C-alpha cells in the first residue's frame, strides 16, 4: 500500500510538472523539485521516528486520497460558505476549495494600498519578490515528509503581505473547504504570511469538510515577522470525523516582534499540529495558547518548538486539554535555549483532564538548555476534576452536572480568555458550554468516583 500512494504522488507530480510549461525552470519550481527529492528519500514518517512515536500517520496508506491539481469551486455554493462564517464578525475572508483559492467565494473588504491579501498562486504568477525571498526558507522539509510533500506541490494557498507600519483591524480569515462528497481528497495548501515592520494583524484559520469521504489536509504555513511586528494566529479545528489534518506552521521572528499562536482543537479524526517559532533576534516574545477538547476516537497531537536563538527573549506556552471518550492526545512541547541566548525566560504548562478511562494522554514537556543565565520552567499535570471544588459548589445547591460544567469552563477559560477577537471567543465558548451540557452523560463515571 505504501508504495502505491507514493507512486501516485510521483505520477501526480509529473502531471503537475507537465502543465507548467514555461515556468518549469522558475526558482519556485526548483525548490519544489528539491523538496520532492527529499520526500522520495525520507517518505512519510513512521512511529520509529521519535517525533512521530505516538502519532503514527498510518492513515495515509489506508485511504485512497486523490490529490487535485486544479482549483474547481463550481460545486461550492455561497450558502455553504455562509454556514462557516462567524456571526457578526467583520472579516477579510479568503476561501479555498480543496486547497485552491476561490475569488468568487472570497470577500476581501476594502483595504489600504500595498496590503496584499490574496492567493499564493497569484503571487507566483506575478513573480512576487517577497515570495521568492521567503518561500521554502523557513519550513524545514529535510526532516519532515509532510512538509516536503507540501513544498513539492506548493501551488496555492494564502499569500498575505502587510507592509511596514500598517495595522489591519479586521481579522483575516483563511477558510479551507474540502469537498469530499464524491471521493476522498488530499489537499496541500501553502501559506506565506509576511509582516512588515511594526505591522499588526490577526489571522484565523479554519478547515471544514463537506461530504462523508475521508479527507486529508496537509497544510504548511510560513510566517515571517519583521522588526516589532505583532501577529496573532488562530487555528480553530472543528472538522468532521473523517478528516485528517497535518499542519506545520513555522514562524520566524525578528527583533521586538510578538507572535501569539492559539490552537483550539474541537473535532477531527487525526490532527497533528507542528507549531514552531524561531526567535532569531533579541527582545522577541512568543506566546502559544492551546486548548483541546476532544472526544470520540479523535487523535490530537500538538508538537511545539520554541527555539531561543538570541538573548533577551520571552516565551510563554499554555496548553490545556479535556479528553473524553476514547480520545488520544499527545503534547510535545520543546524549548531550546541556544548557547549565548542569555536572559531568556521560557515558561510552559500543559494541563489535562481525563473524563474517561479510555482516554489517553502522552505528554512530553522538553527543555534543552545550553545557556546558564536563563529562567525556564515547565509543568505538566493530568488528573480529574477536583473533588473539593465540586463539593464546594454542590454544597451551595448547584447540581452535579452544572458544577462540572462550571469547573470545566473555568478550566478552559484560561486559554479562551486570551482570544482577542470577541466574536471568535464567544463562538468557541458557547460551543464548549453547549457540548458540555449535551454530553453530560459522560460525567456519570466521575460521579461514581465521588460517591
Amino acid at each position, binding site marked *: 500500500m505504501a508504495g502505491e500512494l507514493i507512486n501516485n504522488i510521483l505520477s501526480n507530480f509529473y502531471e503537475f510538472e507537465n502543465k507548467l510549461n514555461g515556468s518549469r525552470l522558475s526558482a519556485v519550481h526548483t525548490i519544489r523539485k528539491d523538496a520532492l527529492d527529499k520526500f522520495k528519500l525520507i517518505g512519510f514518517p513512521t512511529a520509529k521516528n521519535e517525533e512521530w512515536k505516538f502519532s503514527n500517520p498510518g492513515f495515509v496508506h489506508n485511504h485512497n486520497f486523490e490529490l487535485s491539481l486544479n482549483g474547481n469551486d463550481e460545486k461550492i455554493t455561497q450558502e455553504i460558505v455562509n454556514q462557516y462564517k462567524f456571526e457578526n464578525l467583520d472579516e477579510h475572508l479568503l476561501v479555498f476549495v480543496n486547497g485552491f483559492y476561490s475569488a468568487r467565494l472570497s470577500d476581501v473588504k476594502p483595504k489600504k494600498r500595498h496590503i496584499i491579501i490574496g492567493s499564493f498562486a497569484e503571487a507566483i504568477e506575478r513573480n512576487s519578490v517577497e515570495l521568492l525571498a521567503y518561500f521554502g526558507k523557513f519550513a524545514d522539509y529535510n526532516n519532515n515528509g509532510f512538509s516536503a510533500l507540501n513544498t513539492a506541490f506548493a501551488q496555492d494557498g494564502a499569500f498575505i503581505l502587510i507592509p511596514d507600519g500598517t495595522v489591519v483591524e479586521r481579522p483575516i480569515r483563511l477558510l479551507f473547504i474540502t469537498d469530499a462528497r464524491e471521493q476522498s481528497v488530499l489537499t496541500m495548501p501553502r501559506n506565506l504570511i509576511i509582516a512588515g515592520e511594526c505591522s499588526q494583524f490577526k489571522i484565523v484559520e479554519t478547515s471544514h469538510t463537506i461530504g462523508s469521504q475521508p479527507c486529508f489536509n496537509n497544510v504548511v504555513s510560513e510566517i515571517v515577522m519583521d522588526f516589532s511586528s505583532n501577529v496573532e494566529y488562530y487555528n480553530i479545528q472543528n472538522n468532521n470525523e473523517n478528516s485528517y489534518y497535518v499542519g506545520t506552521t513555522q514562524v520566524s521572528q525578528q527583533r521586538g516582534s510578538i507572535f501569539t499562536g492559539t490552537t483550539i482543537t474541537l473535532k477531527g479524526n487525526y490532527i497533528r499540529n507542528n507549531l514552531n517559532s524561531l526567535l532569531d533576534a533579541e527582545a522577541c516574545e512568543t506566546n502559544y495558547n492551546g486548548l483541546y477538547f476532544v472526544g470520540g476516537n479523535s487523535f490530537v497531537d500538538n508538537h511545539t518548538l520554541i527555539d531561543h536563538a538570541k538573548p533577551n527573549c520571552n516565551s510563554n506556552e499554555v496548553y490545556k486539554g479535556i479528553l473524553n471518550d476514547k480520545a488520544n492526545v499527545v503534547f510535545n512541547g520543546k524549548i531550546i535555549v541556544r548557547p549565548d541566548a542569555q536572559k531568556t525566560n521560557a515558561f510552559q504548562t500543559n494541563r489535562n483532564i481525563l473524563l474517561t478511562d479510555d482516554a489517553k494522554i502522552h505528554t512530553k*514537556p522538553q527543555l*534543552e538548555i*545550553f545557556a546558564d543565565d536563563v529562567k525556564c520552567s515547565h509543568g505538566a499535570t*493530568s488528573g480529574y476534576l477536583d473533588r473539593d471544588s465540586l463539593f464546594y459548589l454542590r454544597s451551595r445547591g448547584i447540581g452535579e452536572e452544572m458544577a462540572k460544567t462550571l469547573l470545566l469552563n473555568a478550566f478552559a477559560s484560561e486559554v479562551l480568555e486570551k482570544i482577542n477577537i470577541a466574536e471568535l471567543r464567544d463562538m468557541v465558548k458557547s460551543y464548549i458550554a453547549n457540548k458540555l451540557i449535551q454530553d453530560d452523560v459522560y460525567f456519570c463515571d*466521575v460521579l461514581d468516583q465521588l460517591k
Partner: protein
Amino acid sequence: MEDVNIVEQITLSDYKYGFISDIENDTAPKGLSEDTVRFISEKKKEPKFMLDWRLKAYRYWLKMKEPEWANVKYPPIDYQDIYYYAAPKNSSEGPKSLEEVDPEIRKTFEKLGIPLAEQQKLAGIAVDAVLDSVSVATTFKGKLSELGIIFCSMSDAVQNHPDLIEKYIGTVVPSTDNYFAALNSAVFSDGSFCYIPKGVRCPMELSTYFRINAKSSGQFERTLIVAEEGAYVSYLEGCSAPMRDENQLHAAVVELIAEKNAEIKYSTVQNWYPGDKEGKGGIYNFVTKRGMCRGDNSKISWTQVETGSAITWKYPSCILKGDNSVGEFYSVALTNNYQQADTGTKMMHLGKNTKSRIVSKGISAGKSQNSYRGLVSVNTKATNSRNYSQCDSLLIGDKCGAHTFPYIDIGNKSSVVEHEATTSKISDDIIFYCNQRGISTEDAVGLIVNGYAKEVLNQLPMEFAVEAQKLLAISLEGSVG
C-alpha cells in the same frame, strides 16, 4: 563553617582515589566470543543453567544494535578490545577471614577510607568488598545468617543457592532487555546477591564497594536483591575507580524484587573516574537498574548521587505491579568539565492506587551536558495512581547544557500526575551575599549546591550523606571563577 573547611581541603586535592593497586590478575584473553562466556562460567564453577542463560544472552546480544537515542556522544566502543574477566589471582581458594585477605587489597580499601577492620566494628554496616569482579571479603555473614538473610557475592550465590538464582535472575531485567543488559547477562563476572526472608527486617545497612582495578577490564556487575513478604532492607552501593587514561566500560545490572509489604531502599554514591579536565579518560557507565514491586503495599526507593564517570547512562526504574505499591527516585547528578550524563527514571504504574515520587536535581558545570530523561506511565487499570515529579537543573557557567526529556503517558481518569521542572543559575545576588560575609565564591557555590541537593542528600544514610557532600564539592572544583 566546618563544611566549608572540608570543601577547602578537598578542592585543593585532585581525584584522590586515583591509584592503582598492584595485584596479579587471572585474566581471560581479550575480546568477546562464546569461548569467553564459557571461560567465565567455568572459572566460576557455575551450574549448567547459568551457562545456558549466559549463552542465550550472548547470542541475542550479537543480533542487537548499540542504542543511539541517548543524549551522549562518545567514540565507538570496540567490544573486542576489552578484558571480560579479571580476578585477583590468589582468590581462587577464597579467603576465609580478614587475615587471609591480600594485604594489597586491604591497603586499597584503607586508602578508600573503608578499612575493613574498622568497618567491622562500626556496627550496622556489613561490607561485601568487591575488587575487580571477585568478592574478596564478606563480613557480618554470621550475624545475618542467623536471621536467614543471605548476603553474598553473586558467584557464591550461583553455587550455593542455585534455586533462588534460577528463580529470580532476569525476571526484572531480562537478558534480552537492552544492549548493555544483554552484554552484562553474557559476561557478568560477579556482584552481590541479597535475600531477605519473609518478615525479616535487616538489622544493618548492607553495603558493597565496586571498584575497577585491572587496566582495561570492563566491570560487569550483577546485583540481585530479593525481599520476601514483609521484609525490609537498605542497601548501599559506593563506587570509586582509579585514574585512567583509557576509557573503561562499566555495564552493570541491578535487579530488585519486593514482594507483598516488603520494602527495599537502594542508595548509591557514584564516583567513577570522570576523566581529566580535557575530557580524556574516564569511565563509561551504562547501567540498567530496575526494581519490581511485585506484591501489594511494597515499596522501592532509589537514591543516587552521581558525580563520576565520563558518561553516565542509567535509569533506575520501578515497576509498580502490586496494588498500593510505592516507588521513589531521588537523584543528584553533577557533571563538570566534559562529563555527560543522561539519567532519570521510569515509573510504570500497573497496580491500583500506586504512588511514585521523583525528585531529580541536575547540576551542570564546565562544558558538561546533563540530561534528565524520565517516563511516568499510568496503565488504564492503575486507577487512583499518583505521581509527583520534580526535576530541577542548575547551570554553572555558560558552556554547559541542561536538558529534560520527561515522558508522561496517562491511561485513566482517576490518576493524578504532576510534573514540574525549572532551570536556573546561581544568582549573582546570592553569591554577593556570601562574598559579603567573607565566603569565597567557590565556597559559596559549594554551599549553594549542597543546599540545592539537600532534599536528595537527606534520603541517604548518614555515612553516605557526609561522603556525598564532600564529593559534590570536589567535583565542582575549578568550575567557578
